[in-house]
């Protein structure tokens, strides 16, 4: 069996910021199509830097970042830690933004944005302004906006870190449902062992100072995952393994 083709790959990537900080050093990482990969590590391990380099938002200082197919506009969706919505626009207009920036006609963009909002459970909230939505709902708008262009790669930077536990579980479940339905490739940055085990098929553990990849582990539980998986011995065992890996990463 041949492995699935790569969507994005980093080869010997090092990033040093203008102020001299060495964010990551010598990162080799290939994300296969359709995979769900979590980047897990303590603060300052450069996981957000890696994600931003994958998005092309910052260039690597050395090494290569390659996006399969060259990376056309709309091929990558990005979800920030904050919902990062335009407060002056309605939910619908916020989701329409990537399409409008690409020059799509208003009517068609409206139709697609409404469908994207419905897909994250926000049908009926098209005309709401971000101010009138709860934190979880705002994050759903943000996810709808990232998915509206039907990206091949969805990059998420600790998107649920600011949400309460119950909302976070709901959004984790919904994210997995969307991932299975729309078949995009997901890279998810988190510092939560439990969240990474629940969501991912593969967990890349990173260490800090300088940021680097230290372990690369598989979570071989089948999807769909639900409350049964969350309470299973298998889940607990994986959490234990990943926690141990994280401790090793931080103890070095």
């Amino acid at each position, binding site marked *: 069996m041949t492995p699935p083709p790569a969507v994005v790959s980093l080869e010997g990537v090092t990033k040093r910021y203008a102020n001299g900080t060495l964010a990551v050093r010598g990162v080799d990482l290939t994300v296969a199509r359709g995979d769900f990969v979590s980047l897990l590590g303590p603060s300052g391990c450069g996981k957000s830097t890696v994600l931003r380099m994958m998005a092309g938002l910052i260039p690597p200082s050395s090494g290569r970042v390659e996006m399969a197919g060259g990376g056309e506009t709309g091929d990558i969706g990005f979800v920030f830690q904050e919902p*990062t919505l335009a407060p*002056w626009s309605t939910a619908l207009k916020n989701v329409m933004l990537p399409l409008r*920036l690409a020059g799509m006609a208003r009517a068609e963009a409206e139709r697609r944005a409404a469908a994207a909002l419905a897909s994250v459970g926000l049908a009926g909230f098209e005309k709401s302004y971000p101010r009138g939505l*709860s934190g979880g*709902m705002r994050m759903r708008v943000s996810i709808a906006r990232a998915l509206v262009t039907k990206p091949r790669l969805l990059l998420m930077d600790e998107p649920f870190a600011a949400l309460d536990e119950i909302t976070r579980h709901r959004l984790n479940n919904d994210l997995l449902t969307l991932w299975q339905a729309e078949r995009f490739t997901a890279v998810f940055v988190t510092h939560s062992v439990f969240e990474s085990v629940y969501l991912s098929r593969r967990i890349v553990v990173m260490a800090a100072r300088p940021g680097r990849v230290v372990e690369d582990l598989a979570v071989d539980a089948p999807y769909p995952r639900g409350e049964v998986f969350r309470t299973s011995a298998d889940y607990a065992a994986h959490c234990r393994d990943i926690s141990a890996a994280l401790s090793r990463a931080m103890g070095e």
Partner: protein
Amino acid sequence: MSVSLSANEAAEAPVEHQAKRYAGLTAETWFRILAPTVIGVLALLGWEAVVRINEIPPYLLPGPVSVFQTLIREWPSLSVSLLITLQITFAALFVAAALGLLLSVLFAQSRIIEMSLFPYAVILQVTPVVAIAPLIIIWVDDIRIALLICAWIVAFFPILSNTTLGLNSADHNLTDLFRLYRASRWQVLRYLRLPTAMPYFLAGLRISGGLALIGAIVAEFVAGTGGRASGLAYRILEAGYQLQIPKMFAALVLVSLTGIAIFLAMSLISHLCLRHWHESAMKERR
């Protein structure tokens, strides 16, 4: 499996507080209107009483009743002056808003332009308008245009500096998002920087509205009786020379009322533009 909103999330969405209304206004709004009104009426009554009890002559201090009577009697000439002052004020405010917006957009496009021109905008702002008004009045033949320039100089800077600040205040994550979707310079300006700058621009406009009036009045004072200008400041000067103190007060009252009206109008515009999204214009939340 399908994706749907949890009751928990929906319940957390902020709900607008529905207060009980009396004649269309909430108790809070009524209090906001009535409290200062009561204070104002009490002050006017006290003023009238002091004038009457001490028999102060009207050329020293006219009572509010006398001022009001003068205002009615002199309305034909005062209203013409009011109109002239208003024209100058609004023309100056309009030019200040248009030029301020245009120049700040230019500043936002290029650091070099901003760095080269901004110091001169500051110089224009810190030079007292009273000091340059005589020069402008000498140089510019049309006294109306001269007054307009003076009022514009005073009103221009708050709009320019506020809008420049606003255009540079775009959320950095949103900026990254625009970069991710390869937005053009124009798209970034149109969909990100201008909307971000909107509350700043409106705050500038609110300050400049009052300043434009002050600028117009100050310039009229400097122009004095020499020109054909017959704005409210000219009426104040004229009444002063003729010791018609009640008329002086009447013109002064008109100037104040105009200032208040401009402030309220700018606040209303600001509220209408921002009511859906900006913190400053949001209603009370539960």
